Structures are given as structure tokens and as C-alpha cells.
């Protein structure tokens, strides 16, 4: 059998031989990267969110072998205990979690959201889908709706993301509300 590879947080790893392995199970069980969580295993919660080539996906619904050559980033790649990213620090500042189970998914999701905003992707609440979307609380809530938080830390999660947006250099201005 031909060995195929994917890069995870900058390091190349052979993909699993078992075609049934999901990307999530491969990361957690085989690579020991337990940051991404299994909340529902059916695409319904977002706890398993990771980045593939910079885009967020639900790793529980993707077969690992479909990721040949992909660049995968997990929460471990975004920052660890002594190398917290700006967004991770903002989550701490704003108490963006209680139990923390959804947090890796929230942070991966928010990282991808920044790029989507910079690229002008509209959302379901954008008034004019053809225009560059404004950054508002409503927009951020809609764009984070693929990540559930059973503890209900939503308002603090949004506060953390707003802080990151305010601090990030070169992000589009134009906030309409806060």
C-alpha cells in the first residue's frame, strides 16, 4: 500500500492505513493531539474544529485519508501554555470559557473567521451579500454559530474575539456596533 502524508502543525505525518479513521480520531488517538474534542461526532457542535489549509472544518466528519498533502493546524499549533496567541490571551482576559471543552474548537474557528472577514466573505446576516461585510456583534455571533458552548460562555467568547479584532493589525475597520 502506498503511504500518504499530511502536515500537522508543521510536521509531516503518515496518514492512517484504516480508511475509516476520521481526521479527528487520527489527531487524537494516533498523534496524541487531544486538543480538538469529540463533542457529538456528527458535525453538530464544532468542538472538533481544526484548520485545513487555513479553513475551518469539522474534523469528525472528514476521513483522514482524504487529507493527503493538506496542511492541518490544531489548537496545539496555535499556541501552548507558554506561547499563548493573542486570541488565547483574550479568552483568558474575558473568561471565554467555563469547562473549556469547546474552547479549542472556538479558538480554531475564530482564527479562520479572521481570514474569512479579511477576504470579505459575507454571512447570513450581511445586509448586502455583495458588499464587504461590516464587523458587528451580530456578524460575529452568526459566524461563530458553528461552535456550541454547553456552558453558555457565548458573550465572553464574542468579547474575546472583538478584542482580538481590535488589536490585530490590518483587519478591516468598520465596526457597526459593539
Amino acid at each position, binding site marked *: 500500500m502506498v503511504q500518504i502524508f499530511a502536515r500537522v502543525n508543521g510536521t509531516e505525518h503518515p496518514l492512517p492505513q484504516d*480508511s*475509516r479513521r*476520521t481526521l479527528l480520531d487520527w489527531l487524537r488517538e494516533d498523534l496524541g493531539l487531544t486538543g480538538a474534542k469529540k463533542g457529538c*461526532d*456528527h*458535525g453538530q457542535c*464544532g468542538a472538533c*474544529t481544526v484548520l*485545513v489549509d487555513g*479553513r*475551518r*472544518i*469539522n474534523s469528525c*466528519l*472528514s*476521513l483522514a*485519508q*482524504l487529507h*493527503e498533502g493538506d496542511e492541518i493546524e490544531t489548537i496545539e499549533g496555535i499556541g501552548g501554555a507558554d506561547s499563548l496567541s493573542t486570541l488565547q490571551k483574550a479568552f483568558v482576559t474575558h473568561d471565554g470559557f467555563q469547562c473549556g471543552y469547546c474552547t479549542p474548537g472556538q479558538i480554531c*474557528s475564530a482564527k*479562520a*473567521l479572521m481570514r*474569512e472577514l479579511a*477576504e*470579505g*466573505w*459575507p*454571512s*447570513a446576516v*450581511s445586509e448586502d*451579500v*455583495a458588499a464587504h461585510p461590516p464587523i458587528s456583534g451580530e456578524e460575529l*455571533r*452568526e*459566524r461563530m*454559530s*458553528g*461552535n*456550541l458552548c454547553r456552558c453558555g460562555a457565548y458573550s465572553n467568547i464574542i468579547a474575546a474575539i472583538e478584542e482580538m479584532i481590535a488589536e490585530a493589525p490590518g483587519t478591516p475597520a468598520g465596526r457597526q456596533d459593539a
Partner: protein
Amino acid sequence: MKPFTLNHAQSANEALASLAGGATAIAGGTNLVDLMKLQIATPDELVSIRRTGLDAITPENDGLRIGALVTNADCAADLRVRKSWPLLAKAILAGASPQLRNRATTGGNLCQRTRCGYFYDTTQACNKREPGSGCAAREGFNRIHAVLGTSDACIATYPGDMAVALLALDAVVHVEGPQGARTISVGEFHRQPGDDPGRDNVLERGELITAVTLPAPTGGRQIYRKVRDRASYAFALISVAIDLSMEGDRIARCALAFGSLGTVPWRDPAVEAVLVGERPSPALFDKAADVLLRDARGFGKNDFKIALARRALAATLHEATKG
């Protein structure tokens, strides 16, 4: 999951060869993997069509050709789609979540299966999953089920959003298969259950969706109204897609499609005929609803959909026709 082999097609022809040999196509996998985990789908052989090169959006005549492997996210982010067919972008963005849309594809979205809870529960009777076993939804918890196009065998909806917009936009599905290439209008793509609910659409064995094409933009006012249990990341209870143009104070042209109301994305020319040439008014909208719902039938828990459809239609028409 049952064990299966997984091959990676590098071209549409390679994919077609695998499909002819009995393989099942996997695109984003956001529906298929879910169904495989629950052993509702148990393919022996999968062929990944992700790298077949069918992932481009290109102009065609005055319209647009959207490759079957274009992700829902990329389609809704495409400036041509957003400017000239905003209904399509709006419907896609109203569905699923950003993570799912990044993986879900145009072809896979069209082929997504119902969300009937009994279809997902292998301990229950379901003619769609297991022909001849019965339909647990009929007498059961059928709140999300269809009120139009149902049959004794099955009352499940096609649950998606994108196809509802495509139906209002007169899109066409392009397919290749053992018998060559053919085109199917979106309105003829999904099948009402009849006595064979196992087949959701008219794709034949071995056929591959290669693209969806949109005709020239109409320049009409386009709205997608999705009514659901929570504001985001939920399937529709009812959705309405409209593409409408006014001439003076009269409706000159109107395309209307409904999601999660019937067993298939629903479009009824008689409804549009009621509206065209008329001045918008609550009485007219009510008349259109009468025509739309003339054969509607609830099954208990979903009776509310009949009243909801009337209100959703009126609200959408009001918004599309106001000054």
C-alpha cells in the same frame, strides 16, 4: 463504520470508472460519513472525487457554471454569485455552519439525504432506509415532515437550502454516466417518494454530477427567508426563495420556491401565475397561498407548517414587492 476501500480519483473519467464498478462517490463527506457511522450507508467501496478538477466556477454564455466540487463556502464567497445571483449565496449562507460549508460541495449538497429522525434510527421502521419496513414518522414525531408531495410510503422532506435557491433560479444539473452526458433541470432532479422512497433523486447508477449551471441573471429582487427553531445552524422548518421583478406597481415576473414544505424542493407555476400582472396586496398573497397549499396535508405534529407557509409566503412577498 463497516470496512470499505477508498480510492482517490484524479479525474472525472477515473471517478466514472470507479462508479461504474459500483463505488460510491464521496465529496465533502459531511453527510455520507455521518450516515456511514450510523450504518445507514454501508458502501464497500468509496471513490473520492475531491481531486477530479471539477472545482471551478466559470462564466458560461451569460450565466455561470459551478463545478460539482466547488465548496458551498467558495460558491457563496464568489463575487459573481453574490452580485448577480445573490439568492444562491443567501441560501447557502443560511445553511449548516461555516465549518460544514467549507467542506460541503455543490454536488453533495444536492444529494444530501433527509433529516427524518426515524431514517437516522436503525431500530425504527423506515421505507426510505429499508423498503417495505413501514414509516414510523407517519404516526410519530413528524414535526419537521412534509405537507406536500407525500405518499403512503414516506413523508420526509428534502432538507437542504441551496437547491431551493437553484430551483427558483432555473438552474440545471449536469451529469455524466455510463450512457454519456445529460442535463436535468433542478426541478426534475429530486424525486417525490411515491412507492419508492429509497431513491431521493433521478441519478442513475454510475452517474456523477459534474456541474450546476445558472442561466443569465434576471436582475430581480432576490430573498431567501428561512424559518427555523433557532437563528442559525439549524435546518429549515420552511424556507422561501424568491426572485421577483416589478413593473410600475405590478408584479412583472416572479419565481418562487419552497424548502422543507414538500418532499422535494417545491415550485408551483400556478402560484406564480396568480401573482404575475397583479398589484401586490395582502389579499393577493393570501390567494397565492391558497393555490400553493390547495393539496397540503399535515400528519399531526407538522400541521402548523400549513399556516406557517402562508405567513412565510406573505412576508416574503411583502418584502420583495415593497417600494
